[in-house]
């Protein structure tokens, strides 16, 4: 399997926060979701991947090469959406397209126009006068118009209404129809991940706590619900997280442990959702609210 993006021990240290070491790969033809709370390190990771932050350790390999000596070529093969401030605010989407066009050898003006129409973008309104959703769509149109092979999108669906969000997600699915392309996007909206991702990576406090194919991850875990007697089982001690609420206990356990726990009649064991994984994993029993 070809990896368009490969991280090996990638580390970035700040005075009060360390990201990594991260080991992770994004295969061609896939959509990978990056999930994490605010401050987990998602945007920092995106910036490291785009060369906006110097790494303190490890390596980033893009299309099988490192940035050294190949920076423009690699960047031309990537599209991105970053968190604000974004592009110059006094320019219109049309002018922004004209501004970046010379830097991308594979810029497709017709595609930019058609994406503008598809997203119903006011192409002659300045960026600062666009709504949050229109701004995001402008950034997406810019990212998708130069035939990028790898899209790095930081919260691309934030600020979008449900219809627009669905449209953007459908567009991402269209992008990876071409097996040579891949998308890595971060989000808070876990339902977006359920809908489109092949791979998911969970970041917490700068560490990647879970990563892998979405279905494998969901199959590997069970959400076990029952009475307080659940906690008496030795398997409960191996739970990755859980909560106690009004006499009921919910535990996120490895699937093999769930079988051991699921003996009493009152116990319910179910496949977790990605939201369950994000919510419970790494949270000790007493720390989560009911």
């Amino acid at each position, binding site marked *: 399997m070809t990896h368009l993006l490969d991280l090996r021990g990638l580390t970035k240290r700040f005075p009060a926060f360390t990201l990594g070491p991260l080991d992770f790969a994004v295969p061609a033809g896939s959509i990978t979701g990056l999930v994490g709370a605010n401050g987990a390190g998602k945007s920092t990771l995106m*910036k490291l991947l*785009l*060369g*906006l*932050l*110097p790494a303190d350790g490890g390596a980033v390999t893009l299309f099988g090469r490192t940035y050294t000596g190949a*920076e*423009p*070529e*690699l*960047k*031309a093969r990537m599209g*991105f959406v*970053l968190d*604000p*401030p*974004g*592009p*110059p*605010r006094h*320019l219109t989407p049309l*002018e922004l397209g004209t*501004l*970046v066009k*010379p*830097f*991308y050898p594979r810029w497709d003006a017709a595609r930019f126009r058609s994406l503008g129409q598809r997203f119903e973008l006011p192409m002659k309104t300045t960026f600062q006068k666009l709504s949050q959703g229109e701004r995001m769509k402008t950034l997406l149109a810019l990212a998708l118009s130069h035939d990028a092979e790898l899209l790095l999108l930081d919260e691309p669906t934030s600020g979008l209404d449900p219809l627009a969000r669905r449209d953007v997600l459908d567009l991402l699915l269209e992008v990876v129809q071409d097996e040579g392309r891949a998308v890595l996007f971060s989000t808070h909206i876990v339902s977006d991940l359920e809908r489109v991702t092949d791979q998911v990576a969970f970041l917490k406090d700068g560490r990647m706590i879970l990563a892998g194919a979405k279905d494998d991850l969901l199959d590997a875990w069970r959400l076990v619900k029952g009475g307080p007697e659940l906690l008496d089982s030795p398997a409960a001690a191996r739970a990755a997280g859980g909560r106690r609420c009004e006499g009921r206990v919910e535990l996120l356990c490895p699937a093999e442990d769930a079988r051991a726990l699921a003996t009493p009649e009152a116990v319910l064991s179910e496949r977790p959702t990605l939201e369950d994984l994000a919510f419970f994993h790494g949270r000790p029993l007493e720390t989560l609210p009911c």
Partner: protein
Amino acid sequence: MRDLLRRDLKLHKVAFVLPAVVALLGGLAAFWTGEPPIVFLVLSLGVVLLQPHALHLREEHHGTLRELHVLPVTPRQIVGLRVVEGLLGALGVALLHGMLALVLQGPGVFQGLGQLVSPGWLWMLLMVLLVPLPVTLRWGGRGWMGLILGAFALGGGLTMLGQFEGALPFRTALFRALLWTMDYTTAHPWQHTLALLALMAACLPLSEAALRRRSL
């Protein structure tokens, strides 16, 4: 490079107005005051050579610096852009002043070509554009605050140095070495120019390294 220059022109039209006005006023002032045109040319060049720094700080202030960095260009090209902007600005000012002097004061106002090929221009280019460039690229506005404070501290320190004459053990050796270098290079124009060019050349990789260390 051409595309980067076009981008800057498109994004920072307003920022180009001030140095253009200063250059124009400088050229006219030479006529009004009757002072040698070279005086105003030096002042205008000083302002114009600060322009690349101003552009970079403006990018930082408006949040477009990150957009510049994610374009498929190398840090070396961004350093080159700033240097070229400085050189083009300097050339533009020199031409403007030259033309104004010709039109308003007639030929012969620059007393010989010696004035125009003075190593002073290289010093100016070095000290105003190239030496602070790594600071601008690495620390942006904060770097300039540091430079200004550093200049004040240095000025203050030099002013007070006289009071401590003989108290600093390194003073003699260091100052003698500095004075000797200055004497030697100013007395030997070729060596002087070559040393300046070497210093200028050293600033470029330093600027590139500074830009690579920048966190955006």
